[in-house]
C-alpha cells in the first residue's frame, strides 16, 4: 500500500479504522478462511450421504483431533499418548447422556467437552512434574486405565457388550458440519494460543523448562492448562465418533491408532504450527479413509513408517523449509 491509497480512504473515524485494519489485513486469515471455505464446500460438491458419512466426515474429524494434539504436543511440548482415552471418554459421556438421560445432542457434546477438560486438567497436573517421555507414559497409562474402567463399569456402560446409539439418527451432512465446527474452534484455539501470552509461556516451557521457570513462568499450571484445553476438544470429537458409528464398545471407542495417526499428522505438518498440521490432517485423513481403505491391515505399518521418515527428514514440518512463503509458515 502507498500514500495515494491512504489518501483516498473514506472520511470518518470508524470507517478509517476499519480501512486501516483492512489495509494491514493479515493474510494468514485469508489462508485459513479459504481453507475452511473449501472444506465447507466438500459436502456440496459430493452430496451423496454415503460418501459423506464414510469418507468426508473423517476429514474435519481428524483435523479437529490433530489440532487438539497440537496444543499439548506441539505448543507446550507434552507428547501425549493419551488422547485415545479422552476420545473414548468423550464418546461414552456423550452416548450415555444422550441415550440414557435423553439429553440434547449438542448439550451432551458440550458436557463431554467439560468432562474431558476436567480430566485433562487432572492428568495434566499429575503429569506436569514430568518431562518428555515420562509424560507420554503417564498419559498412556491413564488412557489404558480409562478403557479398563469403561470395560468394568458395566451398570452404566454395559461393559464389553457395547453401547448402542441406534435411536438417535443424525444426518451425515449435519455430522460433517458438526465436525467442521469443532475443527474450526480447535484451529482458532491453536491460532489464538500462538498469538497470546499463554502461547508464549507454552513455547518457553517447550524450549527450556528450567529457564522458563527461572523467568517466572508457572510451568506446572501452564502445562495442566495446555493439556486441559487440548483434552476439551476431544470430548465433542468423541461424541461425533459415537454418533457416526451408531455403536461403541470399549475396544472400538478406545483405539490407540487414532492417537498415533494424529501424532503423525502433527509431526508431518510441523509441531507447534497452525497451517502445517491442518494440511497434513486433511491429506492423511484422505490417505487413511479413502486411498488406503483396502490396506487397513497395514495402518500401523504405514503410520510407523511415515512418523519415522518425518522425524528424520522433516524436523520443522512440510512448511518449514527455507524457501517457503512467509504467509504459509505459521
Amino acid at each position: 500500500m502507498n500514500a495515494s491509497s491512504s489518501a483516498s480512504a473514506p472520511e470518518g473515524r470508524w470507517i478509517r479504522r476499519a480501512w486501516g485494519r483492512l489495509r494491514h489485513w493479515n493474510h494468514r486469515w485469508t489462508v485459513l478462511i479459504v481453507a475452511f471455505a473449501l472444506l465447507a464446500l466438500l459436502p456440496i460438491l459430493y452430496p451423496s450421504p454415503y460418501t459423506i458419512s464414510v469418507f468426508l466426515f473423517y476429514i474435519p474429524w481428524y483435523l479437529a483431533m490433530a489440532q487438539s494434539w497440537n496444543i499439548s504436543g506441539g505448543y507446550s511440548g507434552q507428547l501425549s499418548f493419551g488422547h485415545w482415552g479422552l476420545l473414548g471418554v468423550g464418546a461414552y459421556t456423550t452416548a450415555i447422556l444422550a441415550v440414557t438421560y435423553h439429553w440434547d445432542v449438542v448439550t451432551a457434546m458440550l458436557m463431554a467437552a467439560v468432562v474431558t477438560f476436567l480430566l485433562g486438567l487432572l492428568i495434566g497436573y499429575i503429569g506436569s512434574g514430568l518431562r518428555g517421555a515420562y509424560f507420554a507414559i503417564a498419559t498412556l497409562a491413564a488412557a489404558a486405565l480409562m478403557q479398563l474402567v469403561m470395560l468394568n463399569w458395566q451398570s452404566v456402560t454395559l461393559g464389553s457388550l457395547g453401547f448402542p446409539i441406534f435411536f438417535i439418527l443424525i444426518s451425515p451432512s449435519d455430522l460433517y458440519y458438526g465436525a467442521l465446527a469443532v475443527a474450526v474452534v480447535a484451529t482458532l484455539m491453536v491460532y489464538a494460543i500462538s498469538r497470546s501470552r499463554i502461547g508464549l509461556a507454552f513455547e518457553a516451557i517447550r524450549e527450556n523448562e528450567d529457564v522458563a521457570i527461572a523467568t517466572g513462568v508457572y510451568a506446572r499450571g501452564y502445562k495442566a492448562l495446555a493439556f486441559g484445553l487440548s483434552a476439551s476438544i476431544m470430548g465433542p470429537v468423541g461424541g461425533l465418533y459415537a454418533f457416526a458409528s451408531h455403536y461403541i464398545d470399549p475396544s472400538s471407542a478406545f483405539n490407540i491408532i487414532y492417537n498415533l495417526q494424529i501424532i503423525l499428522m502433527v509431526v508431518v505438518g510441523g509441531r507447534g504450527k497452525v497451517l502445517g498440521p491442518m494440511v497434513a490432517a486433511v491429506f492423511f485423513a484422505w490417505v487413511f479413509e479413502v486411498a488406503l481403505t483396502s490396506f487397513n491391515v497395514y495402518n500401523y505399518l504405514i503410520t510407523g513408517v511415515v512418523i519415522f521418515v518425518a522425524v528424520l527428514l522433516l524436523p520443522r514440518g512440510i512448511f518449514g523449509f527455507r524457501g517457503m512463503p512467509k504467509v504459509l509458515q505459521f
Partner: protein
Amino acid sequence: MGFNPFLVALFGGLGVGSLYVVFALGMNLLIGVMRVINFTHGYLMLLGSYLTYFLWEWYGLNPLLSLLIVMPSLFAVGVLFHFIMVQPVLKRPFFEDNTLLLTFAGLLIMDNLFVKFWTDNLRQVPTTYFNTPVIFHTPWGDAVLSQVVLIGAGLSAAATASLWVFLRYTWTGRAMRAASQDLLAARLLGIPARRLYAISFGIAGLLAGIAGVVVAMEFLFYPEFGFNYLLKAFGVIMMGGMGSMPGTIGGGLSLGVAESMTTYVYNGTYGVWSNGVAYVAILVALAIRALLGKSR
C-alpha cells in the same frame, strides 16, 4: 495341611514378578545410561519368544538351549536398533522427544509385521516340565508352582545377577554407570559415549531375549503381548525409580505380587482388573513424584 490360596497367589506373583524384573531391567538400563525410553522393548522380547518358538518347531530345539542362539541374535538386533533409531537424532535438539517418536514408530512397524508374518495365533513352546507341579510345604499351608515358573525365575535371577556383576566389575559396566551418573563428565574422562550407547542397547536387547525365552515357555503369547508387557515394565520402572537396579528388582516383584493378589481378591474374573494394577502403579508413582516436585 491343605493349600493356602493366599500363599499360592504370593508364590505365583513372585514367579511372574521375576520375569518382570528381567524384562524391565533392560528398559531401565537404557533410561539410566542414555535417557531413552525404548518402546520397542516389548517387541524385542517377543522377537526372542518367536525365535525360541520356531527353533523348537523346526529343529526341536530345547528352549533352554535356544538361549545360546537367542541371546547373541537379540544383542545384534539391539545394536542395529541403536543405529536406526538413536544415532540419527543424537545431535539434534529434543533428543528425548525424537527418540520417543522413533521408537514408537518402531513399535508400530514391528507389531504390524509380526501380525502379518506370524498371525494373531496364540503360541507356546510346550515343555515336559510345564505341567509338573512343585509343592512347597510351609507352616501356614502348602503353596504350589509349576516347575517351568521355577526355571524361569532361576533364569531371571541368573540374568539379574550377571548384569550386576557386569555393571560392577567390568570396565564397560563401570563406564555405563559413570555415563548414567554424569554423561558430560564421563565423556570428558574419555569414555566413548557412542560405542557405549550401542553396547547398552545391545545388552537391553539381550535381556529382552532372555525374558522372551521365559515367556515362550510360560505363557501363550501373541503380538499384542509386547504392548501389555511394555506398560507393565513402565509400572515397574515408575515404582522402582528410573535408572535404579535395586528399585527395578523390588518394583518388579511387587508388581507381580500385586497383580496376582488382585486376581486372588477378584476371584474368578481373571485378568480383567489385574492388568490395571500396572496402570494404577504408574499413575500413583507419578502423582507422588509430582507432589514431591521431582521432574525425572
